[in-house]
């Protein structure tokens, strides 16, 4: 095991014992007079209540207080780049939420960093019908994957297949989609249907955009179907996407790439231990403009152990792999804890299989700090 991993684990173990409770998106904490740890384990990760709150359109049948509608999450990221050396990346997001009767408007706006563009990352209207147990969402939203691919990552490493491009099809699972989503709870099962026609384009945390001579867009609406069922300590899920990309290369006639993505996932929870795995398979029928069928696949296996009351610290290990058709495999050793109620410390060691390792970390701070919350 790399020495940096041992150092990281030793540092983590020394500090985990005093991990503080988590901060929430402060505007929700203020609005409903909730303690922050009501919804969070380690920010920005949600606990079961937080997930339920989100799936009910960010509304609770409780009296409302305060007028704050904006929160800021700042993150200073440190990463040792295998080719370019150590790098500090400051970044920030603005989160906003306002309710209009039964409709809740949510915005996640990325602030630019390192010359990169600022831009809307998520922005949608949500409404929950308690009689039919159905959530309606329209706008720019993340696909309902078992792990949030961009908004609530528990480390700095891309999950499994989430970021994979296939040939010239540059639409990964992790890109938020413009469209509509309906999520219905039926007994122990949750079913999501998604219809989208566009996606987020931009850098999440900096990196000046460069002209690549390629533009892509949805030629037909992308259709997605996601379902999972809870069975005791287990969750079993299936996922599917189908769409067509219009790909335009400078100086070349546009062409269309029809594609499908299919996935399976499961998780198991026993006490403080959580195991989760997900596997995707993809097919692109014209990813190069010459009619070539390209297969792709990938996934992850993750073990996380939460520490202490309230789960405000964790240690994890994850194996990620995908092929598109180049194979990428890595193992990430990571951990995080709440430094104080509004700040998270995250550290990780990524070991690329057959390649080099890199160490990274991040300090994440949420603002404002409402008194007594």
């Amino acid at each position, binding site marked *: 095991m790399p020495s940096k991993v041992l150092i990281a684990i030793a540092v983590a173990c020394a500090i985990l014992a005093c991990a503080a409770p988590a901060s929430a998106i402060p505007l929700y904490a203020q609005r409903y007079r909730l303690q922050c740890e009501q919804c969070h384990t380690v920010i920005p990760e949600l606990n079961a209540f937080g997930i339920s709150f989100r799936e009910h359109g960010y509304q609770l049948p409780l009296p409302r207080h305060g007028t704050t509608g904006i929160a800021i999450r700042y993150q200073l990221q440190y990463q040792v780049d295998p080719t370019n050396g150590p790098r500090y990346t400051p970044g920030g997001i603005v989160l906003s939420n306002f309710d209009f009767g039964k409709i809740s408007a949510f915005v996640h706006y990325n602030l630019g960093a390192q010359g990169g563009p600022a831009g809307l990352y998520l922005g949608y209207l949500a409404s929950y019908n308690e009689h039919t147990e159905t959530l309606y969402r329209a706008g720019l939203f993340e696909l309902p994957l078992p792990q949030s691919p961009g908004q609530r990552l528990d480390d700095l490493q891309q999950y499994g297949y989430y970021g994979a491009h296939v040939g010239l099809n540059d639409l990964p699972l992790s890109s938020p989609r413009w469209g509509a989503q309906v999520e219905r709870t039926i007994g122990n099962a949750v079913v999501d249907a998604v219809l989208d026609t566009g996606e987020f384009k931009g850098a999440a945390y900096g990196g000046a955009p460069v002209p690549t001579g390629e533009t892509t867009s949805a030629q037909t609406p992308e259709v997605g179907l996601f379902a999972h069922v809870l069975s005791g300590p287990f969750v079993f899920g299936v996922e599917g996407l189908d769409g067509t990309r219009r790909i335009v290369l400078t100086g070349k006639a546009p062409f269309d790439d029809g594609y499908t993505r299919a996935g399976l996932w499961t998780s198991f929870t026993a006490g403080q231990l959580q195991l989760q795995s997900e596997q995707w398979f993809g097919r692109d029928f014209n990813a*190069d403009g010459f009619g070539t069928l390209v297969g792709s696949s990938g996934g992850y296996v993750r073990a996380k152990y939460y520490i202490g009351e309230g789960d405000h610290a964790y240690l994890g290990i994850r194996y990620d792999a995908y092929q598109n058709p180049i194979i990428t495999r890595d193992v990430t050793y990571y951990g995080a804890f709440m430094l104080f109620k509004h700040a998270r410390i995250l550290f990780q060691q990524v070991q690329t299989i057959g390649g080099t390792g890199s160490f990274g970390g991040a300090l994440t701070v949420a603002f404002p700090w409402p008194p007594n919350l």
Partner: protein
Amino acid sequence: MRWVALLLALSGCTAGGVNPAAGGGASVTSVTTIDVSIAAFALESTPLGDARGFSPEVTNVSVGSGVQFVNVDNTEHTATSIPGATAFPAVSPFGVSALQPTANVGISGGWGAGALAPGQMSQVFVVNQPGTYIYGCFFHYSGGMRGMIVAK
């Protein structure tokens, strides 16, 4: 439980892809490295037109030496030959086969590094005949990502 075990076993599996091998077994007198990055290496003039993404854009080498590409970018690239070309084609000539490294490493034939992940090195291509050899990136050819090797 069987389903869980099966899915855990399947997860992270990658079926039948290409594992691009680094290095090469060919015997060469020296190896010239060409760095690959569309972000770092801006558009430059070459005798065949504007090109970007490789450093140097025009690589002068001797017959008997070797050439190796190193992806110093944070995204995937290829370095793929355009056999028989005497000028940069106006549009991308590459199919998805460019994502796989070629068995051939002689620079006078059709050759390619395959998709290079960030930080990855290609196999060593052997400069076996004098001439001018044109190549480019499958993903970003339209953005001007191309270069040339001049062998004497």
